[in-house]
């Protein structure tokens, strides 16, 4: 069978340093996969390879069975993969509404149109309003993104990511820098807005990971040492030794 997302012996070197050392991963459509691992394990690099931000040194990525080699980020996005960023990456001088609308114009086929008014695009505007309600920013419609609180900006980041209706969603540490209660609320939001989609997420908060993911991939020094259900991963001796049992587990679980 073909997978929603499949990585085959993916490798990436920065100079002499091997950051990603032969990652194999196959994610079925509709699965929620969390990638965990210590700092510097290569989680963000892996996301950058999948989304086309970096080119892999060797190996392949397949999206719904199609090879992504040589494709640019916008081409990969058009094929149905969308990602968020660890460091909030929004359009600071545009309003919440405009931010979200920019996220979906391409997917609705408006492309580089400059002979239609935005105000007349009923489908785009209605969908933007829906999105705004989904991420609970409908009372901040005309607020510039730069003036939002941090948590609101994170929600907007997710909103832009899902706006185009991609079926494979990559979230890079969506709850980074949030308080415990914010995180709990935010994870619920993520679950709501990604229903039916394939989700790949990097997450540090262990409690959160076990509540969110169908499967967990453990990435340590550029290699996936385990890929299984949360229960199996929790009891995996290798994982416990390499990661969960390590002295810095408390650091990781506490967020950063």
């Amino acid at each position, binding site marked *: 069978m073909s997978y929603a997302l499949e990585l085959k012996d993916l490798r990436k070197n920065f100079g002499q340093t091997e950051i990603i050392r032969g990652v194999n991963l196959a994610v079925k459509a509709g699965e929620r996969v969390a990638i965990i691992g210590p700092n510097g394990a290569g989680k963000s690099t892996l996301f950058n390879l999948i989304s086309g931000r970096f080119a892999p040194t060797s190996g392949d990525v397949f999206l719904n069975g199609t090879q992504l080699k040589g494709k640019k980020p916008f081409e990969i996005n058009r094929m149905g993969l969308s990602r968020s960023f660890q460091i909030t990456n929004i359009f600071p001088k545009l309003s919440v509404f405009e931010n979200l609308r920019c996220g979906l114009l*391409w997917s609705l086929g408006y*492309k580089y149109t400059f002979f239609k008014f935005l105000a007349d695009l009923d489908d785009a505007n209605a969908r933007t309003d829906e999105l705004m309600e989904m991420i609970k920013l409908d009372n901040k419609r005309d607020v510039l993104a730069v003036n939002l609180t941090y948590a609101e900006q994170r929600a907007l980041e997710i909103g832009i990511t899902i706006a185009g209706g991609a079926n494979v969603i990559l979230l890079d540490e969506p709850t980074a820098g949030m308080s415990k209660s914010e995180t709990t609320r935010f994870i619920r939001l993520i679950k709501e807005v990604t229903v039916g989609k394939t989700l790949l997420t990097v997450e540090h908060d262990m409690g959160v990971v076990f509540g969110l993911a169908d499967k967990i991939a453990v990435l340590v020094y550029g290699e996936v040492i385990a890929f299984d259900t949360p229960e199996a991963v929790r009891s995996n001796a290798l994982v416990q030794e390499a990661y969960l049992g390590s002295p810095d587990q408390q650091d990781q679980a506490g967020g950063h």
Partner: protein
Amino acid sequence: MASKHSSSSQVYKFEPINVGRWLIWGLFALVLISAPLVFTSSLGQMILTQMGIVIIICLSYNILLGQGGMLSFGHAVYSGLGSFVAMHTLNAITAGSFLLPVSLVPLVGGLAGLFFAALFGSVTVKTAGTPFAMITLGIGELIWAMSLIFPGFFGGEAGVSGNRIAGSSSFGITFGPQIQLYYLSAFYLFICTALMFAFTRTPLGRILNAVRDNPERVEFVGYDTERVRYIAFMVAGFFAGIGGAIAALHFEIVTSENVSGARSTVYLLWTFLGGATFFFGAIIGGVMAVLAFVMFSELTKAWLLYLGLLFLFMVMYAPGGFAGLIMMNLRVAAFGFLRKLWVSYLALGVTAMVALLGASVMIEMIYHLQFDGALGDELKFLSMTFNAKNFDIWFGSGFLMLTGLGLFELCRKQFLQEWGEIQEDIENEIKRRQALS
């Protein structure tokens, strides 16, 4: 606007005629139609025509600078090449080898601008930021150098001249009289302004803003940022070419100065001074560019120096340009706080004038001694006559300038504090209103 719920598609369908918008565009048209009735002199109408030309070009430049975040140092390439092609077209019409009404020559200039923007744009728009600025500078220099190498097209040092009374005239309109040319330029100004404003309201126009704010993110919502910049660059080139062609009709001569870096700088400077963050900023910039040139270049030889000083102060203290200043004060006025500020504004104005007076007397004396020394030491400035070598005048003007600057700085600190407090009050008021709704 408050939140909208799932019936939102209806909300968007129901748009009663936007009275404000009709009013503004109606007023704009009225001003364009009636301006030459107020300024009936030939000089007045020439100035108005020039304003129209510079406004079109500044608006087109602002598509790059304000809307796309592209700092071009070579916009005159596209307006200037539009001028040259328009002039050659005009001469072909005169010679009878090309049949086209003169009223459509601006369109030819626009197509020329579009063509050259498409040609040079592909290498220019790879990235924004420093590489973009450098490449526009390079292309500007290239075209400037070529203008001296190819006299056939650029006319060498004398340039290319022509006569705008060309071809057959319909209804007795030859565009010979200034008033007829003014109305032609006003017509193009209105259409171009409307089209460029409409452009800001389209999907591409909005994505261009997104590319300005965060190009990387745009790549991850499906857009090729290079393509977005390229199309915007061509649109800007098209309108610049129209402006350039009207300039060719107006001056009836085009020289290599029209494609020079100096000319590009003029467009950059006035678009910035007018205010790049607002659409109407470029209109203010265009009007001021012509006014400043006509008025200050008569008043003093050192006017470019004053312009440079103004530019410096605006970059430092009001990066939003005059449009930004206007909008900030309108916001304060809308919340009824403007009357709290008038004393501060008065103090700022008076101290700035004192400092400026002192500085300008010294500048004028330096200019006089440098360039007009042969005419003696007597100098006329602001209907005063004084001796440029008089120590008392130097001391007095220096004292004025330093005192003015010192007091201005004090007033500025006081003003900033008041301004900050008022902004806080406004934020609180907004929050209070939100809570009520």
